[in-house]
């Protein structure tokens, strides 16, 4: 297992290098002198000269890239033009907000997606299965920012049940924090639930026709035991992997959800950065999410081993 994981890590290294080249290259898509982009409104010649020195803008591009990567490896992704804060610090500030949103969304996704998938697999071909599939496909087709707007309209404007926007840190007021996060995480969670449901369904259908499930039934075990103990356990292995891979969807979904509900997280940070032409922040976020995705991938690989005893020996 260790050898396998080590190999995966080795393959991931060139991928990360390419990602860093891509992210570095982004600033060269901009028209004009990258220095003026890095400097923002700043036009003081001394400051410009210092920046030129720091990012080695007089050197050839490969040298610039190495300087940039060297800084990045030390946690220096540049400085936000707007707040003058280091990009890493800014991201670290916003991250807990998005993590809370992500975790609560994941709860919705798992609680809705997995039972729906099991139900639809067990009742394959019936009206229940059909309805579950239609609902899941609709879930995939609804733009989640629109769902958010409609929920605000209904729950906040019409019924005045939940706040329409804002964020309260859980350390301040846990109950209020959950209340404000409820709608956004539902919106984001249902989008993931649809994907999760479709995968649980197909995984369960595969497992339900396996020999050991037939044996379990033949032994006269209750259907509930057969499905939950024998079938589900095996069907869940690919689902755990998939859950780790939903990371990308989660981050992308968070961008829109945070925008609609004005939640000051990672996603709102990137959108604000785009509008403020705060390019270092945009680059930092692309780099961090991409590397985060690679790490989640490795984690999914590791989980696959842990959950599948047959692979452990090899």
């Amino acid at each position, binding site marked *: 297992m260790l050898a396998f994981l080590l190999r995966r890590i080795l393959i991931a290294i*060139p*991928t*990360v290098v*390419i*990602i860093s080249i*891509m992210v570095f290259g*982004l*600033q060269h*898509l*901009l028209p004009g002198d990258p220095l003026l982009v890095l400097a923002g409104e700043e036009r003081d010649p001394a400051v410009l000269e210092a920046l030129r020195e720091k990012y080695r803008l007089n050197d050839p591009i490969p040298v610039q890239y190495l300087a940039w990567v060297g800084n990045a490896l030390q946690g220096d992704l540049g400085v936000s033009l707007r707040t003058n804060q280091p990009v890493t610090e800014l991201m670290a500030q916003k991250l807990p907000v998005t993590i809370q949103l992500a975790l609560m969304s994941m709860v919705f996704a798992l609680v809705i997606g997995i039972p729906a998938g099991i139900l639809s697999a067990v009742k394959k071909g019936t009206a229940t299965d059909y309805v579950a599939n239609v609902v899941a*496909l*609709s879930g*995939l*087709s*609804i*733009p989640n*920012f*629109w*769902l958010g*707007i*409609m929920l*605000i*309209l209904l729950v906040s*404007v019409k019924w005045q049940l939940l706040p329409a926007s804002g964020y309260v840190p859980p350390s301040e007021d846990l109950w209020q924090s959950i209340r404000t996060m409820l709608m956004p995480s539902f919106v984001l969670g249902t989008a993931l639930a649809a994907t999760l449901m479709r995968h649980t369904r197909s995984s369960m259908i595969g497992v339900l026709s396996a020999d050991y499930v037939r044996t379990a039934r033949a032994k006269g075990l209750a259907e509930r035991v057969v499905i939950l103990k024998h079938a589900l356990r095996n069907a869940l292995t690919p689902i755990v992997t998939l859950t780790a891979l939903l*990371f*990308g*969807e989660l*981050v*992308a979904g968070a*961008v*829109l959800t945070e*925008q*609609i509900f004005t939640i000051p997280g990672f996603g709102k940070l*990137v*959108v604000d*950065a*785009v*509008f403020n032409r705060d*390019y270092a922040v*945009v*680059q930092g*976020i*692309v780099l961090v*999410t*991409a*590397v985060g*995705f*690679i790490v989640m*991938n490795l984690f999914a690989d590791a989980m696959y081993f842990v959950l599948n005893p047959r692979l452990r020996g090899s």
Partner: protein
Amino acid sequence: MTRTATQAPASNDPVLEARAENRVWKKFRSHKSAMLGGALVVFFILIALAAPLLPIPDPAATDWSAVRKAPSWAHWMGTDEIGRDVMSRLIWGAQASLAAGVVSVGIAVLFGVPLGILAGYFGGWTDAVISRCTEALLAVPFLILAIALAAFLGPSLTNAMIAIGISATPIFVRLTRGQVLSIRQENYIESALAVGLPTPKILSRYVLPNVLPPILVQSTLTIATAIIAEASLSFLGLGQQPPAPSWGSMLNTAKNFLNQAPWMAMWPGVSIFFVVLGFNLLGDGLRDALDPRDH
């Protein structure tokens, strides 16, 4: 030559081809949800094409005497914050959405499929380089990459299409590569090699036609994703720029008038939902119809 040709599943024999087409079409037709999806897609395409011919107000014409009016006989879907007809903007907005979906997926196919064929057919270093680049692109969440590209390229509908197209390219590289890897093991490729057919001919005559069905399915499904992505970018202000109508930017404005004019937020979302659902249903149906395993 004719021998190798008849061995290939994508044969040049008109009778066999017609039969295969019939089978696929028959299967597709019996697939109710796929037909529904197809109908939805055709409906939106017709609306988008007919926009200039329909008796509707100019989508950019403002009317200060009819600001944020609820749906009425004069304005079936109401008016927006500067008195423009919502239905007219919706119909014209269909053009932006469909164009974005089709063009961005076109870009992704145009770059992704050849790269995938190269990687899958030649293997070795070519494959290693292409695959690592694909993985790097895939690691950035689709929308984040599109946002970053749109940000650096500058906000416009064209740049949004390019950004979405580039973000979707790795999907096609990966799919095509996988298909080619399995086709490469087939007997008909070996025969073609044995008779000394030059590589470009093998690629265009035997490899390409056989990777096309799954690419068609993936394209249909990716158009659905691309339409949502364009709406998302326009919603964030990174796609279609005002005053040109687009469903995403309509929702962006509507969000500020939820209290006073909820109808503004209703229809663009419903339209996105149905057109995306249409492409999703169509894609699922095509996958079943083109699946050679169960006929």
